[in-house]
Each structure stands twice: as C-alpha cells, then as structure tokens.
C-alpha cells in the first residue's frame, strides 16, 4: 500500500528538493546556543517560519523563500533535551563528522584541522534559507538576525571562507552562500557543477513521495522482474518502516521527537578545478576515445547533457543518443537519463567500476551475473541510498588554478548515517572490494594522495582483443573543507523542543 506522508509535519526539502523547484539560491547559517531558555525561545521564533513539505513551491502563489532548521548533538544538549532522549541518538551523530574522519577518509588536505574556521567553533544549530532570488534570501536573513537580537541566547557563528562584497578572499563570513551555476550570460541557470558535469539527475524515490510511476524508473529499487518500485520510506524518514521491515534503529525517544525527522550530512567539498583540468588534459592524450569520453568515464555520465555511459559508451553511440534526446519530449528525456542498470554492463566496459555514479549507486548490479544471488538484485544497494539536497558554491575565476572558494555544499539525507552515507564513503568511494577493483578509489571523490597516487582501470569488452586502459596518478580532486551531522526534526518536534516539552517517559 502506498504510504501517506504527513506533509505538514515533515520539513521542506526532504520529500521534494528545493533545487528542482526554482530555488536557486541558498544561505546556510550556523549558531551556538549560549543559554538553554533563550535558545529554546529562539528555536520557537524560527519555527514559526519553518517551511513544511506541504508548501507550494511552483506556480503562482508559491513560496519564494524557505527556512529550515536542524541541530547537532551538542546543540540538542545545549537546548537541554532530557538525557533519556539524548541517549537514544546513534553514536555517529553523537560523535559528529570531524571525529569520524578515519571512516570518511578525511585525511591530508581534507583533515578537519584545515577546515574553515567555523568548524573549530561549537556548532549547535543549522538554519537554511533557500530562495528564488538573492533578494528574498537576504530579506529572510535579516529577519533571522532580528530574531537573534530579540530572543538572545544564541550567537551566529562566523568563520566561513569565501569572498567579501569586493571579491576579496576572507575567512570569517557569518554564513555560507550557495547557488546554482549560470551560463556565461550570468542569468540562465544550469544544472552544472564546477568540473563541468551536469548534476542533479539521480535521486532515490521513496514510498509516499510521488504517484508518478515514470519518476520511479531508475531511481527507486530494482525488483527481480526488472521493474522499479519506490524504496521504503523508513530509509529516509524516521518513524516509518525501512527496507528491513523495521523502524529505523536510530530514532530517539519519544516517538514525537523522532517521527518524521531525518539525519542530514552537511559537507563543504572544495573542487580542485585547476588540477582536474590539467589531469583530464594529460590523461586524455593517451586515451583513444578523447577528452569528453574520458571525463564521462570518471563520472558515469557525459558532462554536456548527463547521458548515461551505459547507453552511450563511445562517441558514435553518444551522437545517436543526443539526436534522440534532442527530439524527445520532457518525459522521454527524463526516462532516457535514468532508465538503465549496470547489469547491462557487467564487465564494466561501458561504465567503469570506479566511476562516481556506479560506485555511489550500483543500481542492483552487485550480483555480478550470479543468478538469484540475493533475494532481490538490489539487496546490497537498497540500504545504502541517500537523498542529495545540496548546491554548488562559489565561482571559478581561474580554470587553471585550485585556489579560491568553489565546490559543492553536499547535503545528504538518510535515516542512518552510518549505514547509508558513511558506508558509501568508506566502502564504495575509498575502497573497492564490492566492485572487485582491489584498493582502487572512486576517481572524483577518492582521497588519492600524492604519496600513493590513485589508479583505476577502464575495462574493455571481453574478447574485443583491446587492452584495458589505466588511468594513473590520480590526484586529490575534491577536498573536504568542513561539515557536521545534523538531526532535522519534524515541525511538531521543533515545537516540543522550543517549548521544553520533550518527554521521553
């Protein structure tokens, strides 16, 4: 049966992504709670404007700006949640992101000691503003500053790296701005990120999210019959049954505190654009398919339009696909982008095992052709899915340099950080046993080091007589610059927290 979601209780951006509804600008604020009583008053004041999943995001009379709120474990302590509730949170969330660095592979330049200064502070509250224009974001920001003044008891923390109004690099900004990237004209929004890839295509679909069967193709979970069905709601929202037919084990007491809430991974990921461009140029010199095919092999999708490599493994098939894509209507285009699995490419000759999208969502392809190895083809994948809700930040001024502030504010939602996000990061990005690729790390995100530079293998069709291609000396392309783990409560729970009414007995 289809799940009915309590949309007025669930915070916005969980069920539907703001980014795909025209909210192209965002600002993230981080605060410290200095006084429990006043801090709860502040939470109450913000809650009055917190956006629910029920709000209209598109069309006339739709919202133009949203506000959402979440807490670190230290934040919930500072807001004086009862100990009997606090002890119910999972250890990954209690520890926070920087202490999980060994699991996440945050070493070398990604080590927490090099993160933006704000992460040395006591981060308690996260507030996000997403807007359709910069003006409405600024307006809502001013409103929040007024609430901080009015209630007291909280401090807006400074220490984000970025640029001041004159374009000078600074390291003490009071917020993190994020925005989609624009065409050269500066006004037409794109789905690009700083390496030039088209992003924001694949995201899981869970029960209760949509009634549109076409949206589930390539995004839900793969069944034995080859159909796609929505994932269990409990993989992403607490208080609902998950893929193991259990309630998530990560929910604190009482149910009213945890139900309809979720966990968010916030990560500021710097992109070394100069290194990426140089690396791609150098490596494509010896690569028979040329530069764009090689770039696609790193990601699993072509940079220009996101065409999946599984259906466009070479320049000829890509040209064919492009023609069809250009002529197709919107629904067909969406389908062309998401309707594929890696079971069509079990040797990895089309989409390499170390490509970003294959590592991060293997799409029910970990049976390696063994008939009925698991009870469903996605058994090893369905419990490792994450919802992505981030945006790019910064501008690239010099395509040959890594300097500057630009990357992705990566925000992932899941019911169990350890089982979902951390597992993917540790086992699938930085290790390759599940992909039979030894120690090879994922190309774009792997924590490659100059001491032990990465390599990956681009397989060729078995029996083709061609040699596989090695991509060598992979440098660190993406670096972590900050982040933490947050609990996003339901709106009902925000009110309980604000009122000091959380009662675990």
């Amino acid at each position, binding site marked *: 049966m289809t799940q009915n979601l309590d949309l007025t209780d669930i915070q916005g951006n969980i069920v539907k992504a703001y980014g795909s509804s025209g909210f192209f600008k965002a600002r993230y604020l981080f605060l410290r709670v200095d006084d429990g009583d006043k801090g709860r008053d502040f939470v109450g004041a913000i809650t009055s404007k917190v956006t629910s999943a029920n709000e209209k995001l598109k069309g006339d009379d739709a919202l133009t700006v949203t506000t959402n709120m979440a807490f670190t474990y230290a934040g919930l302590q500072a807001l004086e949640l009862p100990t009997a509730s606090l002890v119910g949170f999972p250890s990954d969330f209690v520890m926070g992101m920087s202490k999980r660095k060994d699991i996440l592979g945050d070493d070398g330049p990604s080590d927490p000691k090099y993160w933006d200064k704000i992460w040395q502070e006591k981060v308690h509250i996260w507030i996000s503003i997403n807007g359709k224009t910069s003006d409405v974001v600024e307006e809502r920001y001013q409103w929040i500053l007024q609430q901080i003044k009015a209630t007291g008891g909280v401090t807006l923390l400074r220490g984000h790296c970025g640029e001041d109004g004159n374009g000078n690099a600074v390291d003490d900004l009071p917020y993190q701005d994020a925005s989609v990237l624009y065409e050269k004209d500066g006004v037409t929004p794109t789905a690009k990120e700083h390496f030039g890839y088209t992003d924001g295509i694949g995201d899981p679909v869970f029960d209760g999210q949509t009634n549109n069967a076409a949206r589930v193709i390539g995004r839900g979970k793969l069944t034995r019959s080859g159909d796609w069905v929505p994932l269990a709601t409990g993989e992403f929202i607490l208080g609902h049954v998950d893929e193991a037919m259990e309630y998530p084990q990560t929910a604190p007491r009482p149910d009213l505190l945890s139900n309809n809430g979720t966990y968010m991974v916030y990560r500021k990921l710097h992109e070394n654009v100069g290194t990426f461009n140089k690396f791609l140029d150098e490596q494509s010199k*010896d690569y028979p398919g040329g530069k764009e095919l090689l770039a696609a092999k790193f990601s699993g999708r072509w940079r220009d339009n996101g065409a999946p490599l599984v259906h466009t493994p070479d320049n000829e098939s890509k040209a064919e696909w492009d023609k069809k894509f250009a002529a197709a209507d919107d629904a067909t285009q969406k389908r062309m982008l998401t309707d594929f699995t890696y079971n069509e490419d079990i040797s990895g000759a089309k989409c390499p095992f170390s490509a970003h999208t294959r590592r991060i969502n293997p799409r029910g392809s970990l049976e390696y052709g063994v008939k009925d190895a698991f009870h469903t083809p996605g058994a090893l994948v369905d419990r490792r899915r994450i919802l992505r809700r981030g945006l790019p930040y910064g501008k690239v001024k010099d395509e040959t340099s890594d300097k500057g502030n630009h990357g992705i504010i990566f925000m992932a939602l899941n019911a169990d950080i350890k089982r979902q996000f951390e597992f993917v990061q540790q086992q699938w990005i930085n290790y390759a046993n599940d992909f039979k690729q030894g120690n090879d790390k994922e190309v774009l995100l792997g924590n490659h080091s100059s001491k032990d530079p990465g*390599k990956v293998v681009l397989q060729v069709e078995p029996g083709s007589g061609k*040699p596989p291609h*090695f991509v*060598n000396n992979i440098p660190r392309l993406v670096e972590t610059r900050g982040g933490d783990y947050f609990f996003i409560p339901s709106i009902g729970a925000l009110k309980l927290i604000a009122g000091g009414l959380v009662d675990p*007995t």
Partner: protein
Amino acid sequence: MANTSGKATALTVLSPIVNQIIDGKSCADITRERCYRLPIHEKSPLAKVPNTYLARLFVLDNVYYESLTASDSIFNFSEITSIFSDSARLKALPRKDQLKSKYLVFSTNFHGDLDEYLTGMWEKWSYDDNGQQRGVQHIWEHCVAFDGVKDSSSFISYMKRCQLDATLFFNGSTDDSLQEQLKSLYLKQEFSKFAAANQGKSAADLQQAFKVFIEKVQPENLDQPSWVPGQSTP
C-alpha cells in the same frame, strides 16, 4: 571433523590457565598482559613461524550466555500479562554453563603438516619484549601442566592434548605455501604497476621493458623480492 582443507590446516588450542594469584595478579591476567605486549606486523613472533596464514591469541574468561529477551519497559499492556509470559520464558531458557577455569585460546590457519608447524612454533617463535628475547614458553608459562614441556616433542604433544576440532578456514588464502602466496601477491601488484606504466608502448619497447621487469621481480625466486610475512605497508 576435518581440521584440514586442501593443504591448509586449522588448529584451535584451548589451554587451561592455572587458577592462582602471583604477587596480587591472577595467572589469567598475567597471561593476558603478555598477549597484549606481543609486537605486531613484521615484528610479531607469528611472522617468524613458517607458513602462518592468520592466527589469534586471547584469554577466554567464560562462555557467553545467550538468553531470551525479557520485557523491561516501565509499564505497558504486555506487563499485565507478564506474570504468565515470563514464567514461560524462564522455563524455556537455555541452561547456564560455567567454565571451570580460564583458557588461553590459540587459533591458527597455516599451510602444511601439524607436527611441522608446531616444531616451527617451538623453534622460531621469538620476539623482543622490552629488551628481553622471549620464546613461545613465555605465553604458555601459566597454563596447566605446561611446566612439563621441555622440548619440541613435548610441546607438540601438549598442544595436541589441548586441541579442539576446527572447521573454520580463513578464506582469503589459496592452498599454496605462505612464501608462494606472498610472492604471487608481490608479482600481481608489481605487474599491475608495470602494465599501467607502460601502456601504449610499441611491441618492441614493451618487450624491452618487460625483460627489465622480469629481471627486477625474479618470478622464480621465492625469497626475494617479495612481501615479508606480516608486512603491513608497501
């Protein structure tokens, strides 16, 4: 039960530890501390015992008791019925066993014959313990009747007396001797480096490079170059 799988042997030894206190410390604690102080990786005494695939050493204090879950909520509906259900639960519980003493557990997977392996343990097990050279006796010293062990043949019969049947094998291993496995691992890694470094070369250049490669890696020479037992980093 089979203690062997192909040419691999699994040995599990449970040696009771003397129930005695020396200078305020139990013999079990003394043994546990000695285990903790064993060096690891290349310096582990087990790296010196020929053909060890994988081994573990620990002190077993007692057996683990597996109960059935009881309801411990403050008050709920099931509480009303718990007077009935809990007596049923208690009746269904498994018997609680106790060990009569603590045990030193040694569990190993190795290549080849048991007697040969145990002889290797007796002769080759050695490590530096804060400047003192220790043999295998140091770990087993406080085990019951170990004072009767004087040479390799009494060691072998002691270990065999404490042996349990073992059927679990380390599956990350092939059937070959440790030396062969380490050499093949080394060759595989070097060969993938070679392939990556020489891709795109002409047949003639490739052949030339391959000759140099073979001279360097000496596939027939099991001693070197290779990984040494216990080696943890390249």
